[in-house]
Each structure stands twice: as structure tokens, then as C-alpha cells.
């Protein structure tokens, strides 16, 4: 019973907190541009509004148009359950859970791409083609990052993997994972969530035809994914084990906030990359993770 309570509490925690992150990013962007910007809680208002709206379905869309966002959202929620939270550890933890986490993210991606193709719109086809293609490189970078953590800690379980000691590898890993975070969450310089040029978008292009509750599920899922990646990045890099309980919790929160602010700053200061350059940057992220792996290897071999 306590496990179930624990699970529900954790899920509620991440689900409630997730929409805060895009709000912070937008606030940072507004601050850099000397604007007042939307309120930090804007996404909550949007989600509440969308949830109570009706749905407009394309005449071409199959039931999958509603099913896929639901499965994608549930897959991300499942991934959130697997993710350990600093001093709290993890609710569900077993050997190899890190692979389940990565593949749940992939499932969410498959579902979003599938739903995008439902409407027969060229823009959405373009968006999902980009999404699934760039995922090939981010997946490689993710596995390389996970391998480096696994080499460092001799484990394939998230809870133990995410407690490494800080080292030279951590910097490389942080850079690599941060780039993966930007790509996976469709932020600048890979994609611009604010653009209105459909030809240049990835994630936003995929969800052009969604409306009402399914759109709310997609938007909430996207914010959840951002939270997941920031938590993963912070825990992979910071030596949580060496801190006190409270200190670790504080470090985790501060880390997530730093990552979010960092995303906002990058978004304000950088321009979006040309699409043909995206694979180059992703390959760089992959190489960073591979170097982190080699460094970890060398540390352990000593």
C-alpha cells in the first residue's frame, strides 16, 4: 500500500511541477529581451483552458489521433515514475530500468510522430520526419551517456548509476546531455518553439492539427519530458551521494532551475541552426558522451 501511495505521490509531484519549467524559460527569455513576458504559470492556464475545450478532428484522422497522444503522455508519466529523485531514490527500480526509460521516451516519440501523420498534412509529415530522424543521433548519444555512467558505477540500475563522483568526465557528460536535452525537447538551436514558420519547425509542426484535451496532453507531456531530462542531467553530473539528504534535494532543485535558466539563456542568445547543421551538432553531442565514456573508463582502470 505504501508503495502505491509513494508512486502516486511521486507521479503527482512531477506532473504538477512539470509545466513550471517552460514558464521559467519564457520568463528568462523575456527578461533578457527586457520584456515583461507571460506569467510563470502561463502553461497551467493554457492547459486548464485546453482541457475544457472541445476537439476539432480532421476528417482524415483515425482513432489513433486521440489514442497516440494519450499513450505518449502515459509513456512519459511512466518514465517519470522510473526516474529517481535525488535523496528520495526511486519508486520502481530494477536492473536495466534505464533501458526501459529510454525506450519509453522512444515510445512517446513514435506516438507523437504517428499522430502527426494522421491528418495527411505535409507540414506535419515534415515535422515527424525530422523528429524521428534526429532521434537516431540523440538515441546514440543517450546510450553512450548511459554506458559511461554504467562504466563509472558498474551498474545498470538508475538509482545507483546516477550517483557518480564528479570528475573530468562529468563536464563532458554534462555538455553532451545538455545538447541532447535541447534536441529532444525541441529547443533552440535545434527547433524554435516560438516560431510561426511551419517549414522550420519540428515539434510544433507535428502538433499543428491537435486541439482541446489531446493538445493539452501533448503540451503537458512535452513539459514532463523537459523535467525528466533536466532531472537526469543534474543527477548524472552532481555527486548527490556525498551530500546530506536536504542538501541533495536542494542541489537537485537548484540544478533543475539552473538547467532551465540555461535553456532560456541559450534560447535568447543563439539563433536556430540551419537544418543541415543539426546532425553535426548532434554528432558532437554523441562524441562528447563518448569522450565522457572514455574518461570514465580510464578513471576506473586506474
Amino acid at each position: 500500500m505504501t508503495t502505491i501511495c509513494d508512486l502516486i505521490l511521486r507521479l503527482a509531484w512531477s506532473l504538477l511541477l512539470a509545466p513550471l519549467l517552460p514558464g521559467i524559460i519564457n520568463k528568462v527569455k523575456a527578461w533578457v529581451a527586457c520584456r515583461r513576458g507571460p506569467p510563470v504559470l502561463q502553461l497551467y492556464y493554457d492547459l486548464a483552458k485546453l482541457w475544457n475545450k472541445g476537439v476539432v478532428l480532421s476528417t482524415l484522422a483515425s482513432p489513433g489521433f486521440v489514442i497516440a497522444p494519450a499513450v505518449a503522455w502515459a509513456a512519459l508519466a511512466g518514465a517519470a515514475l522510473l526516474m529517481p529523485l535525488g535523496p528520495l531514490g526511486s519508486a520502481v527500480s530494477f536492473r536495466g530500468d534505464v533501458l526501459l526509460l529510454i525506450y519509453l521516451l522512444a515510445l512517446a516519440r513514435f506516438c507523437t510522430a504517428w499522430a502527426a501523420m494522421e491528418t495527411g498534412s505535409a507540414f506535419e509529415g515534415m515535422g515527424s520526419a525530422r523528429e524521428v530522424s534526429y532521434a537516431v543521433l540523440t538515441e546514440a548519444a543517450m546510450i553512450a551517456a548511459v554506458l559511461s555512467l554504467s562504466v563509472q558505477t558498474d551498474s545498470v540500475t538508475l538509482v545507483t548509476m546516477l550517483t557518480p563522483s564528479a570528475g573530468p568526465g562529468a563536464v563532458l557528460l554534462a555538455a553532451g546531455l545538455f545538447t541532447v536535452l535541447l534536441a529532444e525537447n525541441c529547443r533552440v538551436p535545434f527547433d524554435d518553439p516560438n516560431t510561426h514558420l511551419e517549414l522550420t519547425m519540428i515539434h510544433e509542426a507535428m502538433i499543428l492539427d491537435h486541439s482541446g484535451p489531446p493538445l493539452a496532453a501533448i503540451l503537458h507531456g512535452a513539459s514532463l519530458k523537459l523535467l525528466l531530462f533536466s532531472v537526469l542531467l543534474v543527477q548524472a553530473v552532481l555527486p548527490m551521494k556525498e551530500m546530506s539528504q536536504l542538501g541533495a534535494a536542494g542541489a537537485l532543485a537548484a540544478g533543475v532551475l539552473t538547467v532551465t535558466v540555461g535553456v532560456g539563456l541559450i534560447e535568447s542568445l543563439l539563433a536556430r541552426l540551419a537544418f543541415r547543421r543539426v546532425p553535426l551538432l548532434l554528432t558532437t553531442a554523441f562524441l562528447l558522451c563518448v569522450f565522457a565514456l572514455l574518461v570514465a573508463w580510464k578513471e576506473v582502470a586506474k
Partner: protein
Amino acid sequence: MTPGPLLLLASAALITSLAVGAWWSRMWLALIATAASAGLGAALRVLLGGGDWEWRSGFLPGGEPLHLRLDSLSAVFLVLVSVAGAAGAVYAREYWSERQYPASAPRGRAWWSVLLLSMGLVLTVSNGLHFLIAWEIFAIAGYFLVTLDNQRSAVRSAGWLYLAASHAGTMCLFAFFASLAGRTGSWDLGPMREQTNLAPLFWLALFGFGVKAGFFPLHIWLPSAHANAPSHVSAIMSGVAIKMGVYGIIRFSGWLPVPPAAGWVVIGLGAASALLGITFALAQNDFKRLLAYCSVENVGVILIGVGAALLAVTHGDAVWGRLALAGALLHVWNHGAFKSLLFFGAGSVLHATGTREMSRLGGLWRAMPWTAGLFALGSLAVAGLPPLNGFVSEWLVYLGLFDAVASKEPSAWAALPAAVMLAMAGAMAMAGFAKAGAMIFLGAPRTAATEHAHECGNWMLGPMLALAGVCVAIGLAPVLFWPAVARAVEAWHPAWNTAETTAPLVTLGTAQVMLAILFLAAVAWLWRKAHTDNLRRGPTWDCGYAMPTARMQYTSAPFAGITSGWFHWLLLPERKMRKPRGLFPEDSLRLERVPETVLERIIGPVGTAIMLASTTARRLQHGRLQFYILYVVAGWFALEFLVLSGGAR
């Protein structure tokens, strides 16, 4: 009942079905079902702990005593043959019906029986000579099934290519079994790991069986044969027949000693097949070719597991080898299930529309909702996504690779790139099947080909539902299937005790079940929330464009364009383009074809060169006697010269 009588029943049923198949299709189906259940029963009996079954007879076919054996390794493959064989037979009843194909349907039934019988024999005979005979019958049965529709020239040339490639492999197997018999003094097969002088023979076996297994670059025959065969044949060829090659590699790497480099080579070939196979798959426009290339990828995944196991054996019997091999063996089942399902789905689409070009299809979900749903499920499984079966086996292989990396032995340097390539292949499989499913079933119909589409009948849906059930069952309750796979791993390398293996399958299964429940709950919730009075239907918004047409949809080539661009050096696409000209352009055209690079750019030119050389050499033979006398005299003089100059001692 012990496996013996069950196998006897199965073979008797198959031989009877061969006799009655031509004119009594109901009886044939009943007999195939009997044979499949008997074969399945025998295999399960061995797998669930009934012990190995062995039978020697004084009967001497071909001068060698008959020796049959069913151990847990061959039983794993026998399960696959039985399940997929029965499913394909049921599917064919409607798909390749008597009414539509009065000439080839009876022939197809007869060869189907032969194929199942010969695959069963390949799995059970324990004598090199008989193995070769069974292997040859199996190859020929495959040829006649692939060329059932022999009115079409594409089918005939695919069949020839299959036959030629298959025999190139068989030639190596002849050499393999003959040298094995020469070195051991007997054709009898069985464990002989102590005779280290047999190790180099592994390379012959790897090539010989590898042609059948279809790993890169020996896959040249596979795409055209699997794409042009009738879909139930594609299903069994892709799901089961190529596994016979895998069986050969696993079987003889277990029975015979292997050279130290074997693990490195096999894991390398596996990783290359996984990545390059799916690269080719993603670039295809023909959905059956896509599925065929995807088989190359899956054989790659299996070989990664086998290679890791071989590495583990040569590096001190490490525990992680067991996980990797278990993953590979489970993937044999999984691939058999979801690939047969997908080929059946592809067959239904082909049956309904008459085209294999994805760019001519679209919007089929309306006419074929069941096929669309089942194809989507198969796509999720083949992309290795939770909570289905593909994830479980890939997860086991990953665990093996991760443990190999964590061991920090030299073998980690093989496991590292293999894990990364496996991840990339997984992501590309996801892209490929998002594309296939979306192009065929979603959006608006692109051409008139889909106008008369209709859902397939119960005879075709039934086997698809059954295979989908297998995919879900292995995904949700992997622990039920573990004992069988673990026993096969022990049969491969008896020194291994799989009890030590640490794969928390119970927890994984529970997590998968919980996830499935979570998915269903989320779907139900969102569905109810969306389908209220507030639901409106309208044309696709598409950024407000007022007159969208079906031709404006994304098609298969641009969808794969980004990844195909990365692998341009390998895919070498051929493009033909006629641009629109003038104020009132008439016809413009852009064609793109992805050739089978290994076949058309390497083997093709080499073959042409050999033919050219032979044609040149043939000029020496022209039928003019005086020149022949001249050859003899010249040869005589040359010999004289050789002898006189002291060259020949």
C-alpha cells in the same frame, strides 16, 4: 507422450498432407494443424524439462544410420516452425485461394508441406549427410514457394537469385560437413568441443549458414525474394526460414570449438547488419522490401547476442554471455511472431489494393481498421518499444552488452560499439515503421489504388490476431518464456548454469503490465474527454490552406530523406528527373530508386566480368580441327620445353 511419437505423428501428418494437399484443401489444413500441434507439443515437452530426445535407427538412408535428436536448442526453433507454419497455412487459405489461383494454390500447399517437413528434419537430424539432404530439400521447397506466381518475370528472377545464393551457401556447407566428417571420421553430429582442430571449420559454417540467415553483406537474395513471394510465403521465409541459418550458426558454434576471433567477427557482422539493414529498410518505397530489409536488421540483433555469447565463452565463461544469448534466442521467437504478423498485414494490403508502393497508398485505416491496428501493433513490437515482446529481447541483449562493458575486459571494446549501433538501429526501426504504417494506413488515399480496398476475411485476420497475441504475451509475461530459453542456452554451452543469470524478468514483466494498464487508462480517459458534444470534424487545418489535396501529403522518400542522406555513400540512390518546362508544363517526373548496393554494385559487376572473361575464353573453342591440332602441338612443345629446361623434376 514423449517427443518421439509426437514427432512421428507430425511427420506422418505432413507426408499425408503432401499426398492429399493438391485436391483436398480442408483436409490439408487439418493435417497441417495436426502436424503443427504435434511438433509444438514435442518441442514444448523438451523445453519444459522433459529432457532431450534422441533416436538412432539401423535404417541406412544414403548409407548412413538415421540419427534424430531434439534438444532444447532445436526445440526453440521447432516451436517457431510449428506456430508460423500453421499460421501461414491458415492465412493462405484465403490469401492464395483456390478460386483466385487455381493452378498455383495446390502446388503451394504441397510445397508448404515439404518446407515444413524439411525444416523439421533440419532441426532434428544429427548426421551430416542427412542434414545436407534436408537442407537442400528445404532450399528447393523455398524456391518453389517463392516462385508460386511464376507468370511474373520479377518473381522468376527473384527466385533464381534466391536459388543461386542459396546454393553458394550450400556449397560451403558441403565443404563444412565433408571436412568435418573427414576430420572426425564419421558423419555423425553431436558435441565435439574438445577436438580443437575443428575450430577453423567455423568460418565455413558461418558463411554457409550466413547466406540463409541473410546478414549483411550476404543478404543479397533476401529483399527481392521476400518482396516478390506471396505474402504467406514471405512471412515464413522471413520469420522462420532465415532462422534456420541462425540455427546453423548457433548449433555448430555450440557443438564445435570456435576460433578465438569468432565472437569478434559475429558481433561485428551483427552490428553492421542491424544498422545497415535498417538503413536500407528505411529508404525503401516498396513496403514488402522494407519488411525484408528489416529482417536483415533483426538477424543482426540476434547475431549481436550470439557474438556476445561467443566472446563470453572465450573470455572465461562470463555470466553476461548467457543474457545476450538468451536475448538472441528470445528474439528468434519474437521476430518470427512480429515479422509474420507484419507480412500478413502487408499481404492483406496487397490483396486489397494490388500495389506494394507506399506512395500510392494512404488512408487505408477506414477500409481496413483491423489490419491497420494489427500492423500498428506489429510496428511497435518490431521497433522494440515497450510493453511488447521486441523490447524484452532487445533489453536482454542490451543487458548482456552493458555487463560486458562493465566487465572492462577486452571484449568490452566489441560490446561498446555494438550497444551504440543497436540503439541507432532501434531508433531507425522506429522511424521506418512510423513511415510504413503512416504511409499505408493514415492520411488521405494518394491514388485510386485504394478505392476498392476492403478488410480481409477471417481466415486472414485469425492468424494475425493469434500472432499479435503472442507479441503481447511475451511482452507482458516474459518470465513464462524464460525457462525454455534458459534451457536452450544451457544446451548451447552445458558449462553454463543459467540459474546465476540476473535478469529481473518478473519485475520487468510487472512493470510492463503496469505500463499497459496505464496506457489503457490514459487512452480511455482522453477518449472520453475528447468525444463529448464539443467534438467537431473538419478538413485538416494545415495552416489554413484552403484546398489541400491528397497529392500534397508527405510521401515515403522525403520522410526517409534525412537519414538516407546520411547514408548516401551506401544507398547510392538512382534519380531520374524531368523538370516542368515552359508556361504550360506537360509532364514532369521524378523517380528515385534505391538499388541493392551489394548486389548491383559489387556482385553484379564481378559477375559481368567473369562472364566476359568466360566469353573471351570460349573463342578458343570454335570447332576448327586444324587449330585444335595446333593447340595440341603447341602444348606438346611447351611440355618439351619445360622438361628440357629442367623445370619439372
